[in-house]
């Protein structure tokens, strides 16, 4: 089929759409709905885990098996609608402008922000039957003391995906973004955190380096890498499948997603590596916003996703390991020939995680990114 691999990348689609509705969130934000901080009492509301209405979940695209959602609908006789975001700032913008979601999927660094702003309901783990299946590493993670507001969802890493039928000389380094045989066919993630992060690591700096001298060098690295780029994209699967990208800076789940969609191509030509200079790792969570309309149903939903059988099914769909006892075999099956896509709790402890930058630091990073792209 001619359209093979040119399928609309839903993540990018959401991003474009997000801009088009920005006006409306600006409007509500300006009307004072987007308060700086919620009240502390609202956070402590006690919610029984029973059905109290339909659900609206707010998630990345292609990040949860739709069959799990319909299974939940059948089991509890409720409707579940899904809305998508394409970046953490856009999720925050929607939340701050007063939109009511029942379950959200923030990354660890954003959990920290949401907790500080009193925007997440406290979760009583006693009410979650499957809470015991969560790895103990997440009993008291750095981003949410005593895991009071969140349960973990998935663990991920960033690396390089490539077409083994086209590219030669892959070396296990971030330098592979400057592979000569793929010059002009390389895509970098269109995400300033990931872009600057990998260049920091390649230069031997801390992933979150903000020192001006270091950032100046990182900027040079990004400019050198740009010579090899065909573009910036957060849409690895269609780019790799269509042959637009021979090398794509990507998340580990992207490669599973790509292989799942390979159709008339051999899935084995799509490879993924992590890089020896350092690997950005991270984890994200499920949480219930304080203004959720159906927090009781939402609790049941979290429990549903944490169920090891459901988690195993979910992993086959999104391709990321989940920190849930009993789901390991499912991921091991995906990672059989691909140890690079694995992320373990050890990696989370020893690997580099994106930290939350201060306003000044974030501005410095954004400036580097703009200077490179200008």
């Amino acid at each position: 089929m001619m359209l093979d691999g040119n399928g609309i990348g839903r993540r990018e689609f959401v991003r474009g759409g997000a801009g088009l509705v920005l006006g409306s969130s600006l409007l509500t934000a300006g009307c004072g709905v987007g308060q700086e901080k919620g009240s502390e009492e609202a956070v402590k509301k006690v919610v029984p885990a029973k059905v109290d209405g339909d659900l609206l979940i707010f998630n990345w695209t292609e990040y949860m098996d739709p069959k799990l959602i319909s299974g939940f609908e059948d089991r509890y006789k409720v409707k579940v609608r899904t809305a998508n975001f394409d970046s953490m700032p856009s999720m925050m913008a929607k939340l701050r402008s007063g939109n009511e979601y029942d379950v959200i999927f923030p990354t660890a660094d954003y959990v920290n922000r949401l907790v500080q702003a009193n925007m997440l309901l406290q979760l009583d783990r006693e009410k979650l039957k499957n809470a015991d299946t969560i790895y103990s590493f997440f009993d008291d993670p750095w981003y949410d003391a005593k895991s009071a507001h969140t349960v973990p969802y998935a663990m991920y890493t960033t690396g390089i995906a490539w077409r083994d039928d086209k590219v030669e000389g892959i070396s296990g380094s971030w330098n592979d973004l400057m592979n000569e045989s793929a010059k002009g066919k390389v895509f970098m993630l269109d995400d300033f955190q990931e872009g600057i992060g990998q260049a920091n690591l390649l230069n031997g700096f801390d992933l979150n380096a903000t020192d001006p001298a270091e950032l100046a060098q990182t900027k040079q690295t990004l400019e050198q890498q740009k010579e090899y780029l065909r573009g910036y994209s957060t849409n690895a699967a269609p780019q790799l499948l269509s042959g637009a990208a021979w090398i794509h800076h990507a998340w580990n789940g992207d490669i599973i997603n790509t292989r799942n969609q390979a159709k008339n191509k051999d899935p084995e030509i799509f490879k993924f590596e992590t890089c020896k200079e350092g690997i950005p790792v991270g984890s994200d969570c499920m949480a219930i916003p304080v203004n959720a309309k159906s927090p009781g149903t939402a609790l049941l939903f979290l429990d549903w996703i944490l169920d090891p059988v459901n988690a195993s099914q979910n992993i086959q769909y999104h391709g990321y390991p989940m920190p849930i006892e009993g789901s390991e075999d499912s991921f091991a099956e995906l990672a059989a020939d691909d140890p690079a896509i694995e992320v373990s709790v050890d990696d989370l402890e020893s690997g580099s995680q994106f930290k939350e930058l201060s306003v000044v630091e974030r501005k410095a990073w954004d400036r580097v990114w703009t200077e490179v792209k200008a």
Partner: protein
Amino acid sequence: MNDAFWRRFLVPGALWLAFFFAVPFGIAIAISFGQAAEFGGVIYGWHPENYADALDPLFAPILLRSVGYAAATALLCLAIGYPVAYTIARFGGRWKNALIALILLPFLINYLVRTYAWVALLSDEGLLSNIAGRPLGIINTPVAVIGGLVYGYLGFMILPIYASLERMDPALIEAGKDLYGGPRQTFWHVTWPQTLPGVLAGALLVFLPAVGDFVSAQLLGGPDTYMIGNLIQQQFYGADNWPFGAALTVVLMAFLMIFVAFFLRGGRSAERREALA
């Protein structure tokens, strides 16, 4: 009927403008003087330094590129749109309305979806490359970005030109011929001046949204096609710095308003010259 009666009809339009332009723009201005909060969001206040940041020469090449792409888009739309409008207006006959409806039809589909269609058509293994028998290499280049803009905004050029052609009295062309004007002379001395207001309106309607567009560059662009719209979007949804994004927006608006003022003044004097000639 007195003036007071007719003035009532201004109310819906004025309300529309107030709610969907003045109020949101006021909010954007308020945000542009705020400060980005540590945990995201905006702290309102008086921080004119956002504007000093927005006027940084770093952004000049991005703005110039955007203006260049938009100007190229407007010229291409004129080159494509004028003959189309002319053909429909002069030779459309009873099919006129149907033909105009056909031109409007794609606009019923979201611009984003239509741009994705171009991704599929232009990509290395897409329809056009298949027909050509080799990858065309158009996608991820400025050509693709400008092409996406032309496609996206062409209708805004055709409609005003069509309207001004429709308004024109065909007897004028007859008169031109009667005065021994050849087809070319008649066009440049009769038809073109008559439709100049439509051309100017179309040029503005295409140029203005094209300058601020971010969809085409994001989906069809390459490493060197960063536009001002992409930069503004990055401030809202990447860097989480709404005040700076809002300040950039206001500066862009101011720049475009000055441009429009000069453009319209230039247009009017051109019309006057034509009228005297």
